[in-house]
């Protein structure tokens, strides 16, 4: 991994990012904006799964309204995240917190894909299985909060 990081940090694109100090904060701003979209969308769906609001909308309505935004924003996150890795490979790829974040992300995306699939293909499933919907919502919230927290801690872990 160290050799890979060294190679990556010597690529032309990485050089450009390293030599222009405004690139990293700009890409990070885009990254945070995309996180806003994911978090707000996920929270809206989770609150609906918990039955906290939006009873006039079915879980399917709520999922159809917000889940596509999660996937689009995750695509933006993957691209902006890739640029951040290329710019500072060691900071991310050699950080345990980064890999924790990626693990949590895979879990969150698998859970999102699953509840979305079920909502779409088994009509009324989440309305009938209230207990399971609540568990899914809480796990989803914990995963997304963990992802944001891990993301911020990448900046501190080595120094902490």
């Amino acid at each position, binding site marked *: 991994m160290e050799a890979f990081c060294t190679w990556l940090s010597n690529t032309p694109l990485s050089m450009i990012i390293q030599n222009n100090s405004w690139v990293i904060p700009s890409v990070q701003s885009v990254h945070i904006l995309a996180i806003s979209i994911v978090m*707000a969308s996920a929270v809206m769906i989770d609150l609906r799964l918990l039955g906290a609001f939006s009873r006039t909308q079915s879980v399917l309505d709520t999922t159809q309204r917000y889940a596509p935004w999660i996937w689009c924003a995750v695509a933006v996150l993957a691209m902006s995240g890739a640029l951040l890795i290329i710019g500072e490979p060691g900071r991310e790829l050699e950080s345990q917190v980064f890999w924790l974040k990626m693990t949590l992300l895979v879990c969150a995306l698998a859970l999102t894909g699953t509840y979305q699939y079920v909502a779409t293909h088994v009509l009324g499933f989440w309305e009938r299985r209230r207990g399971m919907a609540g568990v899914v919502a809480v796990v989803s919230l914990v995963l997304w909060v963990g992802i944001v927290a891990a993301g911020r801690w990448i900046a501190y872990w080595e120094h902490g």
Partner: protein
Amino acid sequence: MASAAWTDMFSRLESTSVATAIRESTWLFPTVETLHVLSIVLVVGSIMIVDLRLINVASRRRAVSELMNEVLPWTWLAFFCALITGSLLFSSAALKYIHAAPFRAKMVLLLFAGINMAIFHLGSYRKVALWDRASMTPTGARVAGALSLAIWVTVIACGRWIGFVTN
């Protein structure tokens, strides 16, 4: 901010026990900052949901007032958390932040966001019953939504820049 009274006030803020604890601990600042980021992404993300309805991009089949009543209480809760955590972060190095251009810009933008919101509520929103379910909202609502989106995107960018110019 050049006046001695302000400088004195901010340096006293910095020397409070809470501010000192945040400044001197290795984990307190990142922890409060993480809570600040979590609050801010929820503030901005939830405001975007309303703004996108106002500019007729998303949630077009839902009544505007219904969407706002559902989403905005969570926005305010998150904003309250952002205010508390932001104040704590500010206190840890008040004199440094008060002189940082992105911090000043962010505070001015927050003021603009508040003014924009007030104008919308005293203007177009008073007659929301007339256009609550319309797929095309009135000009005032569209302007408010577009301005709000622009302001909050810039708030996020300024917030990120504070960390770069003060470190």
